[in-house]
């Protein structure tokens, strides 16, 4: 499948730590404009995979092409093409949010309208605050803004909603949808199934450094049911989170 629809090709990607293959020859392709999820329990190799694709970790085997650029051979070019949201975003202290945006833009040699980027993630009011005074959700949103200053083609997010309250999670899902609507391809890891099901067009499930399944969430469920799987419990029409959101509302609390 070598066509323009594919933005990322990963072949036999391998990472070895202490003689152990933590990422063990995985293959997948990401289509332009989709939200691609990598799911898996802790230690499955999600973050390592992501960091290799972001040109932050050396690739020990196989290769990865992003928009035709070889990740291992031209990391600098790759970094200009991608935006990265790490697991726990942290910023230098004593800097205003506008200055942080300016700083990230300058890192790419660019000058931007910082206020506009802050408006996109609903942080305009906090423009003159220091990042250390933000809540977890606000910091995630700032991080998204900072990752997009240079107009990347692919946006990587590593477990973006871990540790956030339900309102902040939903808000972040909305923001990630918005990013995709602008034509940016999103590659994210998560270990929340609901998040993957709701947000991702296709997901790869990783375990022990290997991809054990790759398809749309619907197909994955369909295939499971075909095998004769039945949930022991009857499915409720609502769950506890629905109750929580119903009682406390969808509005952001920060």
């Amino acid at each position: 499948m070598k066509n323009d629809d594919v933005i990322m090709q990963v072949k036999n990607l391998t990472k070895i730590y202490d003689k152990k293959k933590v990422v063990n020859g995985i293959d997948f392709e990401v289509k332009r404009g989709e939200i691609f999820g990598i799911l898996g329990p802790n230690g499955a190799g999600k973050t390592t995979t992501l960091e290799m694709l972001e040109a932050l970790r050396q690739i020990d085997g196989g290769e990865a092409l992003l928009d035709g650029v070889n990740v291992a051979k031209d990391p600098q070019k790759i970094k200009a093409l991608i935006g990265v949201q790490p697991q726990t975003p942290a910023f230098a202290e004593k800097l205003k949010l506008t200055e942080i945006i300016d700083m990230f833009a300058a890192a790419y040699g660019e000058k931007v309208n910082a206020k506009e980027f802050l408006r996109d993630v609903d942080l305009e009011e906090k423009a003159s605050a220091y990042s250390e005074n933000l809540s977890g959700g606000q910091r995630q949103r700032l991080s998204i803004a900072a990752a997009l200053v240079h107009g990347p083609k692919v946006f990587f997010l590593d477990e973006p909603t871990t540790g956030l309250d339900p309102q902040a999670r939903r808000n972040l899902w909305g923001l990630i949808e918005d990013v995709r609507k602008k034509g940016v391809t999103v590659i994210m890891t998560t270990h929340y199934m609901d998040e993957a099901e709701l947000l991702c067009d296709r997901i790869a499930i990783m375990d022990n450094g290997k991809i054990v399944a790759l398809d749309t969430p619907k197909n994955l469920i369909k295939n499971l049911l075909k095998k004769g799987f039945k949930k022991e419990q009857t499915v409720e029409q609502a769950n506890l989170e629905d109750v929580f959101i119903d009682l406390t509302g969808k509005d952001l609390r920060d």
Partner: protein
Amino acid sequence: MIKKELFTIWVFAKLETFRTFRDKVALFFTFVFPLIFLFIFGGIFGGNNSVKFKVAVLNESKSDFSQGFVKQLTEDETFDIDKESTSLDLAKAKMDRGQLDATIVLPQNFGEKSGNNAYPSGEAQVIYNQNNEQAATTLTSVLGGAFEKVNAGFVKSETPFSVKAISTAKEGQRRFDYTFAGLVGFSILGLGIFGPTTVFPQMKQKGILKRLHTTTLKVRQYFIANALSSSIIGIVSVAMMFVAARIFFDLNMNGDYLSLMAIVVLGTITLFGIGLAIGGWAKNENQAAPLAQIVTFPMMFLSGVFFPRFAMPEILQRVSSFFPLTPVVDGVRLIVTEGRTIFDLGPQVGLLAAWIVIIYTIAFRAFRWE
């Protein structure tokens, strides 16, 4: 391309500088701390620079002459007379503890007219112990000189040979000139090494540097921006010390300000490079702190920060002349006190340039983003 790269450096340098000026802890250590040292050391070594003897005076004579002599000693600024030492035993105890340089004893018949003489006479004794041999010798000759004048008043005598001391320069170097140059070195040492060796490991542990590494920011851009920012802060810090030294300790500025600025910037870039190499390499503060101290202490004690290097044994002087901080301290003193310009300081500037190449090569290779 170059324009873009310079823009990156400029924004990072500007924001780094803002950050320092907004951080109260950083402000204290970079600006207030050196000033405190300036006042402490300026108080010890500043002001009147002339030799002063701490002595006890035991006057056992009741003659008018001896009374007058004691009064004269009391008024003389060369002598600091200890009033508590009223007996020789008390004075000896104090001398043993190093609190007194010597004891001047005027014996019972001192200043009385003896025999047929028309004028008073007597022999004063200077009592000292081994610790103070040098001070006592000087004191003896000072007193000897004083008595000669007195003698000349009583007995007219010819002096075919004499010696007169003529001071060379308009103004010699005062102790404070060394103190000031040393404290500028101290401030740059603190700014250059203690800053980055704590800040960079902290930023690594929080993932702040790793995040910057996801961008196209280059290590060299980051280095230059940080070195630039610390140079600006170094200039401000030294300027504050300079103004304080001028106002409170009468520091003489014989050189030009551009040369002073140039040596301060060169020094800051050099020392900051050491901090950057250590902080950029270390994964956490536990790795950085001991290394920072190993590097800092020899320079603190041997580069002329707290003690002038000329007072050290020759071998130490020779070794310490190659330390990166030594040309900074020497350079500041040569410019401020001796009125040299940066162009006269070939050896100092050359040594700093060599260090910059070495240090930044190491820092560049050792740097880790996480």
